[in-house]
């Protein structure tokens, strides 16, 4: 039953997507989007059923998708694995997804191709569920790619908008580069353990049946992580995520905040045995690499977020920063805490994005915060839910973020990663700074724009309220362990019991409050002159942050100049060496010889006779030369 339900959960969104694609009539009718929503609601329902089933029921149902082995062995399987971890993730995808889908019904209303939107959106849910439920590396890779493709399609949803198309392409390609590493990592692990299957690999690792030098083990591990870096937009693969905000806001909320970007983190947790030293197998410097990547991402993204003007961009960088937190936790071996933060983050970041969507819709597709202000009165529900989300994000007790984030700090502390702990703490302050900045600019003060903002309809605000409530509750619930079955999966975990360390919590809360205070002092002024002054005071720093540390420009240079240069060189080689040389030269030579050989046929009789007699002589000499008789 569980297996059937799991398959059903997986297939339903695909079915919705396919039906919507193939039936243009349905696609254009108002029933179409509802079909997609229904498929996600089904997921929410089943996730609840699974969750209520307890923390230890595991169902694994597989189907051989492609069989390449000649004798025995597993081929490439597709399957569903329902275990505590996937149950947890299903909850996130199902519930956050449902909220966002419902929100999207309102947000996308009136769009001529709303059916197409929901088809793609359902396709995404299918792909995401595939990742969540997958039983082996190749299956996860398959859905990894599908998620990337649906992301491409949804970011580029407004296909007549060049920036959106470009952003979609960028997202796809950056992920492709990361997947390059991922696939190689998968293949290496396969080579070392002889299996793609998670269970078998874990068994092999635990029993020490892993062949390969320590360096290769670390490399394999890191390559797997590279895949996660792409999806979870870790530095240096982070560049696609802010651009991805070109997509419709529900897309940003579900994919680029709540679920898809968390897939990287989820995947690492799923394959924790490729990172965690178990038994005799050590993965070398891989966990450290993971931790430092996360730390770097957290800090850099937070700093960039400080200067963004676009409300969605602020949230995007915030997402990056929070993903950095999770990855730090992974690096520290705190997998269940990373999962915890993933869960809380999904709810409150989804909430924040939906709020921003509501704001954007209210302001008639204005995204620049400096063109907003004073929306508190005009959009009260949005304001209050956004506030809840902000408090959760910045980690104010008892909102969700507080619990998960402080547990990460504790984990870092416990693992003696003090520098990273410091970075995380600073990032907490920065988070408060940019979030409150956005909050103040958007909702407080006077309206600076030219539109007529209005509150969104019920279909949009209800999901907001739901998510706001969840943001408040889910942290406590998780901390109290009754929400949270992941530890069942991760029972090996070295730090068995973690509590919020009051001292760490107090310090971080203090820093967060400092952040609030600073932004209040800068942005809670009618003319924003202090912000301008600050910008003028530190132009170099501002430029550095505004230009995102010039990483995008570097990539652009790499693509436009280096890669395209190589391509042009190849093309020139093709045209000059291959075509003109390899083909052209023999052809020209043949033509030349042909032309010259005609000269023998000069038309003059005597010369013909010469050729004839000469021929006789040559043949005779030839015979003699071959051996005189």
């Amino acid at each position, binding site marked *: 039953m569980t297996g059937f339900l799991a398959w059903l959960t997986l297939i339903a969104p695909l079915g919705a997507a396919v039906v919507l694609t193939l039936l243009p009539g349905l696609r254009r009718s108002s029933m179409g989007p509802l079909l997609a929503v229904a498929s996600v609601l089904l997921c929410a329902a089943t996730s609840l059923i699974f969750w209520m089933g307890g923390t230890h029921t595991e169902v694994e149902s597989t189907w051989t998708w492609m069989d390449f082995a000649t004798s025995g062995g597993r081929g490439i399987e597709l399957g569903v694995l329902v275990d505590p971890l996937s149950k947890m993730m299903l909850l996130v995808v199902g519930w956050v997804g449902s909220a966002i889908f419902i929100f999207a019904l309102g947000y996308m209303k009136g769009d001529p191709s709303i059916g197409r939107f929901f088809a793609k959106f359902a396709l995404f849910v299918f792909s995401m569920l595939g990742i969540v439920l997958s039983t082996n590396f190749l299956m996860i890779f398959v859905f990894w790619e599908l998620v990337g493709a649906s992301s491409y399609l949804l970011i580029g949803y407004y296909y007549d908008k060049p920036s959106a198309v470009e952003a979609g392409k960028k997202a796809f390609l950056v992920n492709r580069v990361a997947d390059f590493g991922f696939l190689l990592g998968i293949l290496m692990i396969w080579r070392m353990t002889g299996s793609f299957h998670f269970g078998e690999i874990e068994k092999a690792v635990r029993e020490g049946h892993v062949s390969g030098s320590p360096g290769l083990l670390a490399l394999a591990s890191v390559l797997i992580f590279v895949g996660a870096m792409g999806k979870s937009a870790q530095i240096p693969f982070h560049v696609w995520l802010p651009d991805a905000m070109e997509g419709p806001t529900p897309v940003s909320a579900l994919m680029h905040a709540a679920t898809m970007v968390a897939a990287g983190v989820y995947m690492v947790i799923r394959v924790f045995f490729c990172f965690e030293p178990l038994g005799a197998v050590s993965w070398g410097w891989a966990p450290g690499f993971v931790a430092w990547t996360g730390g770097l991402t957290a800090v850099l993204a937070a700093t960039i977020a400080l200067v963004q003007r676009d409300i969605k961009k602020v949230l995007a960088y915030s997402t990056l920063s929070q993903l950095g937190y999770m990855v730090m936790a992974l690096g520290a071996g705190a997998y269940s805490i990373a999962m915890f933060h993933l869960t809380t983050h999904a709810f409150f970041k989804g909430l924040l994005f939906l709020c921003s969507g509501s704001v954007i819709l209210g302001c008639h597709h204005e995204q620049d915060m400096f063109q907003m202000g004073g929306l508190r009165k005009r959009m009260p529900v949005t304001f209050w839910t956004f506030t809840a989300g902000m408090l959760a994000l910045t980690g104010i007790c008892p909102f969700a973020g507080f619990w998960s984030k402080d547990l990460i700090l504790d984990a870092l502390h416990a693992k003696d990663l003090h520098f990273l702990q410091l970075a995380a703490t600073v990032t907490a302050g920065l988070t408060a700074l940019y979030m409150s900045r956005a909050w103040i600019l958007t909702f407080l003060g006077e309206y600076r724009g030219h539109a007529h903002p209005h509150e969104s309809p019920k279909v949009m605000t209800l999901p907001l309220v739901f998510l706001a409530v969840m943001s408040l509750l889910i942290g406590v619930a998780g901390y109290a362990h009754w929400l949270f079955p992941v530890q069942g999966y991760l029972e090996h975990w070295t730090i068995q019991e973690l509590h919020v360390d009051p001292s760490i919590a107090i310090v971080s809360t203090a820093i967060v409050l400092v952040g609030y205070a600073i932004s209040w002092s800068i942005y809670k002024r009618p003319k924003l002159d202090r912000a301008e002054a600050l910008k003028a005071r530190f132009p170099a720093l501002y430029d550095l942050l505004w230009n995102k540390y010039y990483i995008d420009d570097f990539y652009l240079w790499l693509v436009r100049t280096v890669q395209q240069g190589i391509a042009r060189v190849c093309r020139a080689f093709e045209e000059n060496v291959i075509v003109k040389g390899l083909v052209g030269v023999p052809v020209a030579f043949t033509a030349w010889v042909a032309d010259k050989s005609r000269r023998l046929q000069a038309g003059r009789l005597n010369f013909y006779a010469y050729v004839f*007699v000469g021929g006789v002589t040559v043949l005779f*000499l030839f015979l003699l030369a071959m051996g005189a008789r």
Partner: protein
Amino acid sequence: MTTFFFWAFAVVVAGSALLAITRRNGVAAALWAASSFVGIAGVFVLLGAYFLAVVEVLVYAGAIMVLFLFVIMLLNLRETDLRVLEGPRMHVGGAILGALFLAGLVWTCRRSGLFEVPLEPKGPAGETGTVAAPLFRDYVLPFEIVSFLLLAAMVGAVLLTKRKLS
């Protein structure tokens, strides 16, 4: 005696041929060629090929050369016309090729010992009767073919020298 005649005929044959191919005047060339053919007929006699000697003189020196002269006259080629035609050309190349060919031929003869075989009439003498015997027995087929060959040449010559066409 044979030796003397041989050399005498050889000189006639080769010398006349040389003159024939170097004369600018067509008539002179034809006459020298006829002289060469007569020399060949002499050699034939020397080897006992009497019938052939007669045929050679009659057909070659007689008929064929007369035909040549006739055509030369018919075309009314003046010596000056012909002289203009000729200029020094490719003699060296031709001589080298000729020398190589001749050397090859002589070498072949030497290798196969022909220079050790004395030249003397062997076997039946080539008189009319003795030649006719194989000609009308073993070689009747080529003989018939030759008749058609001559017929073809006749038809062709008539065709080609007809004045008008289309």
